[in-house]
């Protein structure tokens, strides 16, 4: 099974609004083993110049994955998820994700190409607050091993 090239350039519906919560940030920081107090303690975050607790930079992947989930799970795309590994990841931040943000994530497939026996697919996901403020752009490249057309 090969990835359907007709999906190149397709933009998927935005995921439902995601509310960045104190509990989720702390859970994520615990899971990556990062004890930094700016991820848990409002006073520490304010001392660092933020309005409230901020998220570790890579928490943006949770939100961007919610945006690209509809693409990855689309049977018409033909991605074999068990054969997928993460090839590249890049984030561009306008600011840090902060407790209380409500954001949406909308993904576009920007590249599909063969690399040897593998196929690589890049999605660009825009994470924007419900008020329209850009927070982060996430560029994710997935590699389906052995998936070349």
């Amino acid at each position, binding site marked *: 099974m090969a990835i359907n090239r007709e999906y190149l350039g397709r933009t998927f519906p935005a995921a439902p609004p995601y509310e960045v919560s104190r509990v*989720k940030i702390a*859970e*994520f920081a*615990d*899971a*990556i*083993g*990062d*004890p*930094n*107090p*700016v991820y848990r303690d409002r006073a*520490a975050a304010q*001392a*660092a*110049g933020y309005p409230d607790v901020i998220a*570790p*930079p*890579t928490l943006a*992947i*949770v939100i961007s*994955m*919610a945006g690209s989930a509809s693409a990855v799970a689309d049977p018409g795309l033909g991605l074999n*998820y*068990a*054969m*997928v*590994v*993460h*090839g*590249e*990841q*890049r*984030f*561009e*931040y306008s*600011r*840090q994700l902060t407790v209380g943000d409500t954001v949406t994530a909308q993904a576009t497939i920007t590249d599909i190409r063969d690399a040897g026996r593998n196929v690589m697919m890049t999605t660009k996901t825009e994470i924007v607050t419900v008020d329209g403020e850009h927070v982060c752009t996430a*560029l994710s490249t997935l590699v389906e*091993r052995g998936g070349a057309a």
Partner: protein
Amino acid sequence: MTAQVGYDDVKTGTELAAVSYPVTRLSLVKYCGASGDFNVIHWNERLARSVGLPNVIAHGMFTMAQAGRYVTDWAGPGAAVVEFGVRFSSPVVVPDDDIGATIEVSGVVEEKLDGNLVALALTARSLDAKVLTRARAVVRLP
């Protein structure tokens, strides 16, 4: 947490001390739950091997998170990450024992940019493999 680094104190070419971060099967189970990425290759050895992997492997994003921690710990709480990108060049293989694996991250100040921005070139290794390449973070320093 480290002291705050200031833009004026940073010199291009400065090598930053390497830091080692542990990763165990428990780390991956926690990361599955926190991230929502339950791909079987991160927790099921039988299925990981069945798709040709040597064993369970860490989420690439777990490794990237360790590199992110390296950057934010170096830069200090008043710094902001503006760009952060990596290529996952080799998997971090995590055996089912009490030790797990280690991700060693190092960095060098690659470039000082306008607007109090500093670019760091990062390297991450596990065992003998480079697990991140073309890893670069741009931070805004006070």
